[in-house]
């Protein structure tokens, strides 16, 4: 076929993929298969909801979030990120339940027309424990797993390349849009747009930035679609993968054990065991 000849001589013979691809993570937890970590995060989050109460989610957080985070050396970042993620919803859920739980009678504190109740406080703490377990589990996964690793692993297991692409591209689009917004903000500022000062000024300054960010992204979609089509992305069948994350029979067993444990927990809650 025309053009099929090597473009250069032969200095590349024997070269493999760059070492950075599939490079093992810094800790044993990082090096777990992404699906194992995803399973742990999912099971932890769902189990926290199913368990309810305060003790169950607290033990879950200690065992399935804090311990692995310590082992992975990401505890500090995990606490900061998980709190940032969950604080807005945690605070509002805590306050709503503390002051407005229907049927609560034991008054702890009165502030004008609203009343904090003991039942409200107990339920609010339970909700808080669940929220922290969910956000902690998700954050731990995020801090120890590259999205591309999970996508490659799922693709290796037979998931459609298109679904894998959409999942990965969705994650990657957020920082790209943030970067574009930063560039447009700088450009608009250079032309005199006032984006600092009072809240009203800031709000007014957002409008000329949001428009170009959204419209630019929409325009780029067509170009990106064409570029993908031109690179045979729509070809039916499996893609060739250059590498994939390591896995083991022990990890597969662990994943099944976690899933079966979750199913058992749900069944136990449904039939009323331990309630």
């Amino acid at each position, binding site marked *: 076929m*025309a*053009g099929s000849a090597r473009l250069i001589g032969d200095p590349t013979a024997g070269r493999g993929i760059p070492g950075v691809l599939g490079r093992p993570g810094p800790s044993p937890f990082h090096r777990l298969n992404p699906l194992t970590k995803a399973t742990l995060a999912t099971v932890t989050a769902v189990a926290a909801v199913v368990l309810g109460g305060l003790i169950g989610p607290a033990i879950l957080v200690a065992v399935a979030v804090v311990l692995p985070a310590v082992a992975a050396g990401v505890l500090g970042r995990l606490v900061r990120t998980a709190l940032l993620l969950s604080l807005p919803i945690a605070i509002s859920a805590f306050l709503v339940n503390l002051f407005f739980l229907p049927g609560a009678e034991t008054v702890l504190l009165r502030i004008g027309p609203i009343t904090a109740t003991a039942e409200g406080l107990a339920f609010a703490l339970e909700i808080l424990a669940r929220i922290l377990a969910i956000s902690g589990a998700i954050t731990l996964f995020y801090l120890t797993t590259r999205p591309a690793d999970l996508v490659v692993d799922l693709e290796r297991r037979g998931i459609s390349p298109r679904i894998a692409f959409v999942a990965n591209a969705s994650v990657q689009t957020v920082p790209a849009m943030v970067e574009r917004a930063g560039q447009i903000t700088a450009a608009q500022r250079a032309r005199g747009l006032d984006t600092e000062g009072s809240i009203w000024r800031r709000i007014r300054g957002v409008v000329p930035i949001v428009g170009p960010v959204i419209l630019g992204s929409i325009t780029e979609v067509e*170009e990106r679609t064409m570029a993908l*089509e031109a*690179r*045979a992305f729509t070809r039916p069948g499996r893609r*060739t993968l*250059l590498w994939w994350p390591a896995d083991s029979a022990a990890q597969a067993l662990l994943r099944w054990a976690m899933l079966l444990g979750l199913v058992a927990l749900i069944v136990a809650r449904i039939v009323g065991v331990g309630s």
Partner: protein
Amino acid sequence: MSLQLSGVGYRYAGAQRPSLLDVDLELPDATVVGLAGASEAGKTTLCLVASGLAPRTVGGRIRGMIRLDGEDVDAWPMHRLAERIGIGFQNPGTQLSQVADTVFEEVAFGPMNVGLARDEIIERTWDALDALRISDLAERDPRRLSGGQQQLVATAGLLAMRPSHLVLDEPTAQLDPAGTRLVADAIARLAAGGASILVAEQKTDLLAAVASRVVVLADGRVALDGPADEVLADPALGELGVAPPSAVRLRSALEAAGLDPAVLGASRDG
């Protein structure tokens, strides 16, 4: 073996008038054809049509016939065409897959989609990176590169597909002279390997360096078509909104000043 457009016209969806009219164009193997023209002359549209993206992906209506190595490609799906025809666009940012964390994976993206053997993908990828002298970028995040570097990465992605026909829409738009030379070298090398290449460019110096034939579009029609040295020296070029190559402009300036352009050759020889 060639890419052949016969009487091709094309109208974008919702457009009042066609963007291409009765275009005849042949890209024989081992040939570089330059495509020039003023803005809105139809260069990008012709690139989209020649690559098959219009109307398959872009929409719109096409008439006329496109034959690839003797076969009518009217019913071919885009992924089948993509294995034979590569296309590069002028905006490198939108050519990146956005899902590759390294330049190596970005360049390998097309061959991976085609389902080639892993070893062949790796060989093609290193070849393409070496051809554009960007092997040292292999481990870098393509999203964090400069526009010029991204353009070279996008071009390497095309080379890795080893298409028998290649369509490049302003491939050096964001490149400095050194990057432009690298792309020109890669184009020449690919053509020497047997590929047919259509290069749409504002930089007629590049066309003068790589193209054996040049087509100039005006209002969607072919206004000039012939050997590169003749077309690029045609006095009508300026009227068609195309700046002649610097050598032609220098020769014209010498003639206007009453000097003999032959002194250029004399000084170069001497």
